């Protein structure tokens, strides 16, 4: 194992972050049998070092590359129960405000692998839900950055990283940053043929991508796979159902679209997806008329 670099810094040296309140944390260094763990007062990040120690003048540094995981005590800053309650009420802006405030004391360390990643992921998701795609991107990139130095430990577990990439792709598409989206798709291999066993988020995001490209039939085939094969994954199942409803309408299969909407309203009442389904249902007559006009025009051209 790589020897953990600990450096003692003499008092009086120039360093940034002096004066910030120390943050108690459990730091895990290294991995496997050679890993070690220590509870420390973190004193900021500067000059490529994460500083810790009894005071700002007598302190030691970790190189971030050596930190496998940090566990912060967030109990006083983030009220999990409140977050859960607000989620049930779908008060997303309030959750965002609460999390932003709660994460503020740890901001200096938000690029490190830590137990903050689940909150950061939540923020990527929630900012996406409320339509603040730029901010969603900030958080998703914090967790999943294709330019990350592979020598550094992963920022979060694989599941969160996958989800973060998915929100990155979704946000880029919403922002119409097509080139960046396409580059990300190529990097993640999302544009390749999707088998039945592909992960729900991969199927879903590729379906969204194909929708953006107006290849509706290919898109709905993937969204349908999420519905049929990932019915135990509510995070992607529900949006996939909504996407199916939308795509059926785009393909002129309005009866099918209405049926999907009815099922969404039945199965997922009081959810964002039910709201979206309601909105789509309200547009259905207009969509149908537009489709009929389009078909008439097409027929006349033929």
């Amino acid at each position, binding site marked *: 194992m790589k020897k953990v670099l600990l450096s003692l810094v003499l008092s009086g040296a120039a360093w940034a972050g002096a004066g910030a309140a120390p943050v108690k944390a459990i730091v895990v260094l290294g991995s496997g049998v050679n890993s070690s763990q220590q509870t420390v007062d973190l004193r900021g990040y500067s000059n490529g070092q994460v500083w810790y120690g009894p005071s700002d003048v007598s302190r030691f540094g970790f190189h971030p590359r050596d930190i496998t995981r940090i566990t912060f005590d967030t109990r006083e800053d983030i009220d999990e129960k409140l977050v859960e309650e607000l989620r049930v009420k779908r008060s997303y802006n309030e959750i965002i405000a609460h999390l932003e405030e709660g994460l503020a004391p740890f901001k200096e360390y938000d690029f490190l692998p830590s137990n903050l990643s689940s909150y950061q992921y939540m923020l990527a998701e929630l900012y996406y839900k409320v339509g603040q795609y730029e901010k969603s991107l900030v958080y998703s990139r914090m967790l999943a950055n294709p330019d990350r130095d592979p020598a550094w430990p992963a920022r979060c577990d694989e599941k969160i990283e996958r989800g973060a990439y998915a929100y990155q792709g979704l946000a880029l598409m919403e922002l119409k940053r097509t080139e960046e989206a396409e580059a990300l798709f190529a990097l993640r291999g999302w544009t390749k043929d999707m088998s039945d066993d592909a992960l729900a988020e991969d199927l879903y995001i590729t379906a969204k991508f194909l929708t953006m490209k107006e290849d509706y*039939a290919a898109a709905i*085939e993937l969204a349908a796979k999420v519905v*049929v094969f990932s*019915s135990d994954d509510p995070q992607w199942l529900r949006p996939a159902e909504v996407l199916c409803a939308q795509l059926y309408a785009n393909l002129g299969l309005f009866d099918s679209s209405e049926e999907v909407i009815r099922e969404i309203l039945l199965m997922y009442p009081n959810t964002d997806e039910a709201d979206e389904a309601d909105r789509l249902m309200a547009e259905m007559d207009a969509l149908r008329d537009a489709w009929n006009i389009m078909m008439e025009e097409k027929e006349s051209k033929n």
Partner: protein
Amino acid sequence: MRFFQRGCIRSVSFFVVALFVFCGTANGQKAPNFDTMSVTEIYEYARQMLERRDYARAVEPLQAVIDELKALTGDNEKQTTQECRLELARVYYQLGQTDEGVALVEEYMENDPRPNERLALRMMAQAFFETEDWDKIIEYASRIRSDPEMTPDDEYNMNLLIGQAYFLKEMWEESIDPLLYAERNADDDRVRQKCQIMVARALVETENWSNLFAWVRRVESSDCRYDITLNITMMLGAEGLYASGGKDNLLNALYLYRMVLPREELISFSEKKKAELQRKINGVELQPFEIKEYEREVENLDASIEQLNNMDPYEDHVDLSIGEIYASEEIKRYWEGYVAFKRVFDRCYIPADEREEFDEEEDEAAEAKELKIKIGEAGGYYAAAALYNLNEFDRAEQRIMDYLNEWNNAGREGMFQREYLLLMIGNNLNRSNFGAVISLRKYIEGLEISAADPNKRMAKANLYYMLGLAYLQTQQNAEACEQFGVFVDGLCDESGYVVEDFDFPNRSYALYYRGMGYMLQGKFAEALSDFEQYLDEYEEGDLVDEAIFRKGVCQYALSETVEDTKGAEETFTYLIDNYEQSSVRSEAYSMRGDIRVAKEPTEKGPHPLDLAQEDYDAAIKTSNTPLQALYPAKRSAEAYQLESKWDEIIARMEQYKAKWGVQADLAEAQYWIGQAYLRQDEVEKAFNAYMGAIADYGNFPGQLGVDKIIMEMVGLVESQKDASTRNSWIQLVRLKLDDARSANMEVLALRWQLTRALLQGEESLKSFSDLLVSTVNDLTVTSPGPLYLMCDAAVEAGDLEKMTNYANYFISNFEESDLVWHAYRARVTAQMELKQYEDVLVSVGAVQNLFGPVPEVGWSQISKANALDQLGRSQEAEEAFKTISSVPQWRNEYMGEAYCGIGRTLFQQGEFAQALGWYKRTYMQCKAYDNGIWAAMAYLGAADCLVEQGESAQAQSILQEMMADQYLNSEERAPFIAEYIQKAEQRLQK
């Protein structure tokens, strides 16, 4: 099944403390001699043993205390005795000696005081779990629950007990509330999870679907979804619901199926759980009852795993069912259906070339494999069906053709071959893709009749029937009759024996349509026989009135004299009198009118024309469509024309216009009105009537008579001898064109432009055609007049895309137009270029059916012959070429190509002598045709024939003759036949 109860220890602790008041201390590990000890000392010893959880050693001292004190009557002694009884009972429970424990609790309940009565009752209830006496549990637990002083712990424990008891008694409804209470209040995850599973199962069993789905959403993150029994229950519940049908049941079945986890996942989870329990059992400091409890759980898990292992593989079946539900008519989520079916197919289908090995196996594994194959086959078939519902026709047909070819190449019939054919043929029939249907004929013919399997036999008969319909629709009437005839006269098996028990439901239709097929071939006698047979055999058939009508038509066609038409007249009269609601009654009136109009006045019938006019009048009145009325209106006008009754013509046309309003062919009516004026020499009135009709109806593309009027009016203007009148009329056309343009009446403007171009001559017409092709992209502004020019221009330019687009639009919108043959010519030209020969046959059939052997469609017969030739059907091609030479309207224009074609097709059949004859006729009789191309080709063909006959020298002389042919080698024709001359030269050099 038994569960820990919360609060038990707390009660016992209290009891232990109470004893301590008068207990001493027990010393050493060895059991003391209780006979020499005081009660207090024995008590103290028991307390110590309990504190150490050494239950086995606590039995004797506790029993000793009870024995010492039970006969005493003091309050303290009584109380201590009772408490010792309860404690000893608890000890027995801990040691797994429940019977002894129960006896002590019963003793406790029979004596006083009973300060811990609720605990005693609870212990009784729990004990009944051992004996599986659910009624007793319910009885005891209910007594505790009704106690107003019941503690929260009691309430929790009793709900847990009652819930379980009801559950085990399979009183599902009753079990739900107590189990829900226990689940909400459990602080032990294991208990909570068990409760979740039981609630889910009870909700399935009570078919309480909405609550079940809400429940599953609530607990979906817990391990309860891995419970094997619950999964099996959900699956069985889903199967029941699916079988019941109806949308709600289907949806509920779908949600249940979707929750079922794969076998491997369930087994793996249960194995892990078993290992965990096993670790606990092997661990330290477990009480016997705990060990027993864990062992029981392991046993249950083993039983579930075994049950699961004994089941047939269900994942594929579940996926198939999910697909079927999604793709059902009620749900219509075909994409979801498709992906489920495709997965089943990908997982289970075994290709034809790997199937042999399996067929030879005869063991259990083979049975399982067979089931898997069936599911895979069904998956593939349903996937194709779903794709059709999604309008993904190419993908559907790719799958089907892959399957058909795979089994065709293997020389066997695939399990779903007939179903695939029915699917593809049915779908193409609905989409009027008759060529595609016909192209599948070889696959149908390859199927056995399968006398042993009625379903397969029925499928084959249906395929013949549908094939017959496709031939009928494409006017390939002889083939249609052949297909219908396969089972109309009795379905034969492979050896030619009639399958006697075969009763094909569509036979009546097949009989009728075969009659139609004969009729359309002009085989009226055969057609009449079929219609009469239909009427004899199917008195209540759906097509009785139509069969009567067709019978009349055949009788009429078979009549050689007016007198012979009596039978037909009677048949039409019978239909008119007896089928008032018939859709063909109007046509029967028209036909009877036609019969009467041809009659001479007699004594019995002095006014046949009047009677005919009455019939035409009735035909218009009873017409169901504008077209049904147009025919008698025109026939009536023609009849009146014979009697020069011009006002009556005008009145008849007005009647027709009034009956159908804007739906009528108003321009056609105006045409006749104009004609009536012309016959009365009221040229000005006629001109005005035509101009009025064009102006009023010309902006409606579907008013086909406008185009006819335009042609008529152009003739009228050109025949006007008075130059100033003619010029003023031409000027009027220009003004009308300006009006139409300023009013943005695009369709009308194009029609006026056409009129103007026709009046200005050929050059102007050519410029107008070019203008149309280069500027008109939106075909909705066109009508048959401009469109025919566009079709012709596209053909001349060789623009395949435009040929196809214009033709498709024309044919689908104006099939009734007299000019539609231009569109068919464009379509056929494109199809020939694209080598779509089957489609050419379909198009030719359609145009010939519309127009018959008129000069305008001679090209169609040439195309048909050439397409047959390209398809390798030389004999049929030869016949088709010969038809040209036998039809006077075609012969003149196409004789050269036809003779040469006959020669070529005979050559292909190896009939060199005959071919030579036809080639000779070509270059001798048809030199002038098409700049001598056919003659040149015929010279070369003749030389080939001679070479084949071993007459090389003569072949040489034929070629020399060709080179010397002054007509062919003239300056005028040289550019057209240069390549043939070159070929001849090359051959001569050899």
